[in-house]
């Protein structure tokens, strides 16, 4: 099976938590992108900026903020701890870090695809008696679905590449919170070049696959 157990474990852990994070943010991302693309509301530009912040801020800074929010000494962390939920230094921390870091990419991509849906079609659907919910699911989503899938793929690949925020919030614990990126860093530090290159190959292959698919979807989407 080519790879060692450890390599398999790291790869599968990264992919499954990355996938879970993409699934987790998808409904929120779609809802928010729709609000950005179709509605005007007070403080919209402020919210837009906040959502985009993780895209431009140093990931380590974002990680530090998350650590302050979810750490056991914060009110939220305390409240969660009392209910037996601990975020920091386990896979849930990885999930949160990945989700927060990839959220802006998802929102931007989905927002663009919503904006490309002709609002006239939604208006006409309304005159035909369709409820806002039916318009959303029968007209808007199907017309934007390629952008949504592409955005989700993009978010997924960004999640796989996450490093700075993850290492602060979840640490770099082999077998518990170690993702592909963290493991590569670890192996290089330890001088285990062969293991590092194996993981490097896996990340390149995955990234290529996702970006290529998402670009292909976006191009096909525009032709529609």
């Amino acid at each position: 099976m080519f790879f060692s157990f450890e390599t398999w474990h790291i790869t599968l852990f990264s992919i499954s938590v990355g996938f879970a994070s993409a699934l987790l943010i998808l409904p929120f991302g779609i809802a928010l992108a729709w609000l950005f693309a179709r509605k005007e509301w007070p403080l919209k530009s402020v919210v837009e900026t906040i959502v985009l912040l993780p895209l431009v801020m140093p990931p380590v800074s974002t990680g530090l903020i998350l650590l302050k929010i979810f750490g056991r000494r914060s009110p939220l962390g305390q409240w969660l701890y009392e209910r037996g939920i601990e975020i920091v230094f386990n896979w849930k921390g990885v999930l949160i870090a990945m989700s927060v870091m990839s959220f802006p990419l998802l929102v931007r991509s989905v927002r663009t695809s919503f904006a490309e849906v002709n609002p006239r079609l939604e208006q006409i659907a309304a005159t035909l008696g369709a409820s806002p919910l039916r318009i959303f699911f029968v007209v808007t989503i199907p017309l934007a679905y390629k952008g949504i899938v592409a955005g989700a793929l993009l978010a997924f690949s960004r999640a796989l590449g996450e490093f700075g925020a993850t290492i602060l919030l979840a640490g770099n614990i082999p077998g518990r919170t170690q993702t592909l990126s963290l493991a590569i860093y670890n192996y290089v530090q330890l001088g285990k070049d062969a293991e590092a290159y194996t993981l490097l190959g896996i990340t390149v292959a995955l990234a290529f696959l996702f970006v290529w698919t998402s670009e292909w979807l976006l191009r096909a989407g525009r032709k529609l």
Partner: protein
Amino acid sequence: MRLCCRIPLAGFDLDIDAAFDARVTAVFGPSGSGKTTLLDAIAGLRPIAAGEIECGGRMLFSSARKIALPPRRRHIGYVPQEGALFPHLSVRRNILFGAGRDARSPAASAIHLDHVCEVLEIAPLLARPVSEISGGEAQRVALARAILSRPQLLLLDEPLAALDVGLKEKILPYLARVRDEFAIPMIYVTHNVTEVLALADWVLLLRAGRLVAQGPPQAALTSARAVRDAPEEQLENVFAATLIDSDRRAGRSRALLPGGAELFVPFTAGAPQSALHVGVSADDILLATRRPEGISAGNILPGMVTAIDLVDDQALVRVEAGGEFCARVTAGAVSRLSLAAGAPVFLVIKTRSFRLL
């Protein structure tokens, strides 16, 4: 139907106050006069600053009484200019999109998919994706979709504007069939005179957001006010006529007006007794006080002047000659011929000046 609304637009306010009760009401005016805006406002797709919209006894909007029904509760079928078919659905699913509404209402039983498809001749298209039909077909599909939502009012936004001339001639009869088959009042927006006259029985004449004139088509479009407002605009006479016979070699057909006039019009291959619309510009009608002789014009119609409207240096001479004609001549011609209401007159019209619509 009562329309009374004020809508602020970029360059001007759209300000309308009209009450009418017609099968087909045409909203006529040049581009940019606020026609589409008006339709959007009726459908509830655009905010109205103040006013009331009432349709068939139902109040759709009233700023005073704080009523503003959302578009989906207005029961208005809207066929926008570009058709706006859902590109991801088949023709059939497009047509049935609004068909679930009021499926048990009395109106529903009168409107069936099969019937609508038959009237609009779109049954062969049903299984196709929307991307594989032509522009004219798309318009008919959009029309079918609106009709099958069983609306109490149909709004048509220049359904012919996006089509080339050849297709236009083919879709006009469909619109007339929709008017006659389904008892749904229509409001029809256009900047094309012949469409107005061929379909409508009431006209709202709009310019830069204001209602310039309203009334039966011929009267509204040739009203002195309309002419004063746009002296350069074409003035058209259009008549519903019956074909009598055709002579291909002579290049002409004979048509009978309901008022009794017999006209020579350019050759058409239609069957005798079939209905057709013919039009002639008010500028292409000559007036003569004596019957002219030795002249190539095919139509010399004796009649009587019923009214003369002077608009600046133009004169609109209305003549009853087995049909209500309006001829536009110079004010000088009226005084030279001593024309006045009640005077006998001959209308001289070239066969080829008539257009078949």
